[in-house]
């Protein structure tokens, strides 16, 4: 009887499904796994997706992908996809991204869709539900809820004489435990911070909360301001310093710096390779243990985080959420997207995930609650029951990760004080935090006191009007002088018979170029001028905001840092590298033998593109002892020490020194400049070489007869003849390197501590990562104004110069 009913239902469904099946709705989802390979987590998600597609045959899911960006902007892929016109229909959202996405108008309010089925919100933890409500609307739907927990190795605890059933409860305990667990001879560390972008502060915020501090706070008017530069913040920062940089004595009497390692991938390289005893990792409402699965679950303890000095228990709370893109206007797709979003958070999906874990032999790792709910009682063991206890407490103490405007980049900025105190432990923590707070307020949260803003507007109005008038005046003057000068030189006119036709033909020839420049250079220029006065948004409404962009630029620390570093970059590039091609050309011209060979070798860098060279050098700068530059350093130190031994002088240097060339503020800028100089010397010399050949030999012979020395000949014959070329190259190189960014982007992304952040990067990041187009154009205009003098000078040089072919 039941079987017939089932068959009937199935047939009915089939009939219902058939007409819709004919018009499958495709939903593009950002971030679904492409295949079932990968970790158990991806496998489970993939199975949920398969089940969804089976259940809703009329909906087809497509993995939307875009490009990945490394460096500080690695989460901005979806923003760039939206900016680039490839918005996915469903995208992954977490707390720190939510507000920015809403402000940009990317997220569709889900209120109507939730109203269809209000019960979907029930399983969500109240602490998370609070965050979801943004000014009375819900924009994203959580399908998994997460807390950060303290994970530790029970076997390491036992080995160090600690009780594995008593994880550290306070900071003091945490530190002493970490000391006991740090064993340099085994390469083992007590704790670890991830030093990849956004990694350090992601762990550190837990300490900040435990100290009683806060990351950001919402002001009464709905804006956000940073809140970590308080005594509590200082306590947390000092604790961080203690963990990574404080020197202490090991039982064997040796000195040891810190108890926590800082490395780019601590989870894989230290935790996964049994080199780290305690670490922070997520736990979710479904998955009790997310540790890398090659560590036996019996060895892993999971506990609430240690309490801060004031007795506060706190840890990060987060949620994996799906949002529906507001740019997708088709209600059918919206509805289909909602089905998917809802399904991912449903009990059914949880059942599939549970089974996928059990199939993978990982039933142990699941939350006992899910196991019980779906009938897998035999997997509920002592260990995961223990973990569950921790879970409950962690959710209770959970602090939602910062979720204000632009908080998607909060960890990037919050890394800065941590990196600074790690590099320079003697800096004053209060000042370090104050500086960071200022940057974050100005840069991410855009918070300025209203009165200050008003005063700034007045000043800006004056300054900008004056500045524009000046530049415009100068420009007009310059252009008039130029055009007059040029028009004066030649003015012959052909006595044509059919003048109109004559002009027409000329214009047909010229039109592609003139039109192209008008459309692609002048029009965007004019538009950019307008945009600089707007708060330009891609999906939401664009507003006129007067001079606020310029004010923001002028008050933005990173902008001025950018200018300063660009100048430094120009100075270094030209100072170290400008004369090199000239000298090289002289040598190449004078050397009697092997000219062709040398020339080809020096020309090699030009054969590869700039990107290739940047990548190549990035590898040479590797911070490990195997990096080419560190090997060279090692060789130098060895030589120095041998010399010292030889001369019996106390010259000994530590031979295990290694430098993070691109990560150390002292060397970063030079490290970025060197490849440019290296690659530019050879190709640059080719031009000079041609110019040298065009100097008549008679002149030199005459000089020889007069008894001139080599130096005199260079000084009085060669250099003056090269002058026009040198001048042109100099101005070109100046303007070129002032705008440089691609190579820096590849090598350091602007870091460390903004040490290589140039103006070009400031513009690029703001425009394409933060989507602050108005700000970026304003900054570009200011940079243009600074360079305009040089460019006009360049034009003037060109006026007096004629280019001829080299024969």
């Amino acid at each position, binding site marked *: 009887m039941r079987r017939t009913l089932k068959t009937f239902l199935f047939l009915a469904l089939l009939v219902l499904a058939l007409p819709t099946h004919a018009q499958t709705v495709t939903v593009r989802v950002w971030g679904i796994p492409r*295949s079932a390979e990968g970790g158990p987590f991806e496998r489970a998600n993939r199975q949920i997706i*398969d089940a969804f597609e089976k259940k809703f045959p009329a909906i087809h899911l497509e993995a939307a992908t875009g490009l*990945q960006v490394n460096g500080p902007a690695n989460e901005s892929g979806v923003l760039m996809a939206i900016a680039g*016109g490839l918005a996915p229909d469903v995208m992954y959202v977490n707390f720190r991204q939510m507000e920015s996405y809403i402000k940009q108008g990317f997220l569709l309010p889900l209120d109507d869709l939730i109203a269809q089925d209000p019960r979907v919100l029930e399983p969500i933890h109240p602490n998370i539900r609070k965050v979801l409500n943004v000014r009375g609307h819900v924009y994203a739907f959580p399908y998994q809820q997460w807390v950060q927990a303290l994970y530790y190795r029970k076997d390491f605890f036992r080995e160090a004489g600690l009780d594995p059933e008593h994880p550290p409860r306070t900071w003091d305990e945490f530190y002493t435990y970490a000391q006991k667990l740090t064993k340099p001879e085994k390469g083992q560390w007590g704790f670890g911070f991830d030093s990849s972008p956004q990694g350090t502060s992601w762990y550190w915020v837990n300490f900040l909360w435990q100290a009683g501090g806060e990351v950001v706070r919402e002001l009464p008017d709905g804006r956000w301001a940073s809140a970590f530069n308080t005594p509590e913040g200082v306590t947390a920062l000092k604790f961080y310093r203690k963990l990574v940089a404080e020197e202490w004595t090991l039982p064997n009497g040796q000195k040891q710096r810190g108890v926590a390692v800082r490395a780019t991938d601590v989870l894989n390289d230290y935790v996964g390779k049994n080199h780290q005893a305690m670490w922070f990792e997520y736990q979710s409402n479904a998955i009790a243990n997310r540790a890398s699965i090659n560590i036996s679950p019996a060895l892993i303890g999971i506990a609430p985080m240690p309490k801060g000095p004031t007795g506060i228990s706190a840890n990060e709370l987060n949620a994996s959420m799906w949002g529906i893109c507001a740019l997708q206007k088709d209600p059918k797709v919206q509805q289909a997207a909602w089905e998917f979003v809802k399904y991912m958070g449903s009990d059914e999906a949880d059942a599939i995930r549970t089974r996928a874990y*059990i199939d993978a032999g990982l039933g142990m790792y699941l939350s006992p609650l899910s196991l019980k709910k779906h009938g897998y009682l035999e997997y509920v063991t002592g260990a995961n029951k223990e973990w569950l206890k921790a879970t409950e407490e962690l959710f209770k103490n959970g602090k939602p990760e910062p979720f204000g405007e632009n908080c998607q980049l909060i960890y990037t900025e919050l890394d800065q004080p941590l990196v600074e105190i790690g590099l320079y432990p003697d800096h004053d923590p209060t000042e370090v935090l104050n500086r960071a707070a200022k940057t974050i307020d100005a840069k991410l949260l855009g918070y300025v006191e209203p009165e200050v803003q008003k005063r700034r507007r007045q000043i800006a109005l004056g300054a900008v009007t004056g500045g524009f008038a000046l530049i415009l005046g100068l420009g007009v003057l310059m252009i008039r002088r130029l055009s007059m000068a040029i028009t004066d030189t030649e003015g012959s006119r052909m006595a044509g018979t059919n003048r109109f036709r004559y002009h027409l033909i000329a214009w047909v020839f010229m039109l592609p170029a003139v039109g192209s420049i008008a459309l*692609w250079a002048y029009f965007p220029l004019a538009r950019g001028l307008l945009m600089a006065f707007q708060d330009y948004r891609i999906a939401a409404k664009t507003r006129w905001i007067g001079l606020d962009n310029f004010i923001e630029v002028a008050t933005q620390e990173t902008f001025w840092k950018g200018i300063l570093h660009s100048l430094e970059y120009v100075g270094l590039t030209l100072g170290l590298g400008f004369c090199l091609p000239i000298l090289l050309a*002289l*040598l190449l011209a004078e050397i009697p033998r092997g000219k062709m060979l040398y020339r080809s070798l020096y020309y090699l860098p030009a054969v590869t593109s700039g990107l290739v060279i940047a990548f190549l050098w990035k590898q040479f700068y590797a911070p490990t002892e195997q990096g080419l530059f560190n090997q060279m350093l090692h060789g130098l130190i060895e030589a120095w020490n041998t010399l010292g031994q030889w001369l019996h002088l106390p010259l000994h240097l530590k031979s295990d020194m290694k430098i993070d060339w691109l990560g150390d503020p002292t060397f970063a800028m030079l490290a970025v400049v060197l490849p440019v100089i290296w690659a530019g010397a050879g190709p640059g010399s080719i031009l000079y070489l041609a110019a040298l050949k065009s100097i008549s030999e008679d002149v030199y012979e005459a000089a020889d007869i007069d008894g001139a020395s080599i130096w005199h000949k*260079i000084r009085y014959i060669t250099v003056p003849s090269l002058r026009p070329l040198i001048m042109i190259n100099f101005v070109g190189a100046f303007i070129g390197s002032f705008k440089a960014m691609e190579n820096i982007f590849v090598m350091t992304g602007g870091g460390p501590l903004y040490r290589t952040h140039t103006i070009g990067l400031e*513009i690029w990041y703001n425009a394409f990562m933060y989507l602050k187009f108005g700000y970026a154009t304003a900054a570009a205009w200011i940079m243009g104004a600074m360079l305009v003098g040089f460019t006009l000078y360049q034009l003037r040089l060109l006026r007096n110069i004629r280019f001829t072919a080299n024969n």
Partner: protein
Amino acid sequence: MPIIPRVGRKTARMRLLFALMHLVLALGALTMLYPFLLMLGTSITSSTDTNEFRVIPRYLSDNNALFAKYVDDKYAGDLERINLLYRTDFKRLSDVTLPTNLNTLDSRNILHFWQFHHADTPIDQLEAGFRGYGVHVGNLTLTWRSYLRERFQNDIKALNRSHHEEHQSFETVSPPIERLTARNWSLGTSQKERDFLEWKRTLPKNWLIEAGLDVLFAHYLKEEAPHYGGDIRKVAKVWGGIRSFAEITIPSHPPTNPQARADWESFVRRFVPFRYLILPTALPEYRAFLKVRYPSYPKLDRAYDSLKNANGEYDLPNPLPSNGRITQDWGEFISKAVPIAKVSLKEPDSNFRRVFTSEVYNAIRCHYNTYSITDLSTIAKMNAPYYLADARYVLDNALHLRRNYITHNYNLVIDYLLLHGRALWVTILFCLAMILTTLTVNPLCAYALSRYRLPYAYNVLLFLLATMAFPAEVAMIPNFLLLKELGFLNTYWALILPGAASGFSIFLLKGFFDSLPRDLYEAGMIDGASEARMFLTITLPLARPIFAVIALEAFTASYGAFMFALIICQDPKMWTIMVWLYQLQINHAQYINMAALTIASLPTLLVFIFAQNVILRGILLPTEK
């Protein structure tokens, strides 16, 4: 060489000067060349030796280095497993060396015997090696991809349909994960798993790793058995005369020593894969177990339909399904109900010992024993000669392996680039289109400006040049938005149009056209030649070197451009090689990047080699008027 006078070159001072110049130039040339040599050297390494930064990697001449590389590759860098299998204690993968006893008579004989055994091991006890790990893409993945490409005729959609996945190209496809030592793993039934199995049978024997239980059992005694606490001395007391966990062997039947028996039992009940258990006599217990578990029969009926035999009774599940209720119950049965005395193991390690024992036994009995073994009980402490087998293979195939390692990274990159949708075509088309447009738009305009003496010619030129006063960044964002509004994003137009005209090129060209002798044109006009004819017959031949230089510049600029292309063409279908390379370096290892960089420089290198003379002739030099 006119600055240094021709006279007096033989003097000591001049000789010194020349020597010094040579020295400086040679040193400089070395710094130019060395990075590229390193790039080439590193591009043929893998994770064991990539950090050595040698121009000529060690494995090309050193068998130990080659062996380390092979082992790392085969066992996916799992050093713990390697040490357990080899009974060694290497601290790092790069320390792995060849065994010293490789050439003894015993070794040779045992190895010979083992090879027959290996060939007979059933496929579900063999794991496919060379899988790769982390950022290292293994040969298994590479060959699997090329197999699938052939099978699905390069159609990724066909693969997605058949294997139920969502790939956009073959580059993300990877073989299914085999968890041979997971308890309930079995040969899968999905299309992908069936395809994989069929293909796996065709793999060379040395690719297949025996998934024996010795390693798993050693791991169990070390990490999981609570009463030992990881102490090898305590383990040795029970398991007799061993010095390290690597020496542990698993008996195929329950041992007699009570503690050892307890260890064996709890290991078998909790960890041994179901496939490795044989318990033909346990049927009555199984039926009893089911009766207890399902007191009411009808409920049992449906799930267990497939196990029912003709008499309406239940048989042992064979083969065991990979999941579902039967499997779950089976797990319960194994861990709680089955009498341990009825269980024995059928797995490669103990199997090898069993077969080898009978071989040696026969040899001793018939007096043709070639082994030095006289006491059969030593065989129970022996494990299969994995170390010897791998070493022998490497030494016998050294040449082939070296060749393979040299080309491995390059194969991967070539696969990545060529098969990445259309990267190559996009790049070629983009470069060609760019060269063509710059070579038409700019010279046309310059020619008009130079030949037609328009009264406002210089104003036009100024209009074209004045944009240089503004940095490209000012216009970059509006440019992007303009492209977006015109619907050009993710099209070739977006790559080509904005950069088509360049004021500076026009300026250069006009200067050059101006400098051409006017008499030629006057003569042409007298002969009644049309403007187009004069352009083609007079201007073009003279301007060829300059055109070549402009074309070259357009080529290098468009070939190397990646930043703007990254933004305006985010659709992977429109990515140029450079954008793909940028993506490649994010999630691939350094040595793969080096190979990629080498390949990426080839086109420019070739162009420069062939166009070297043209470049030198086409350089335009500034002179003051």
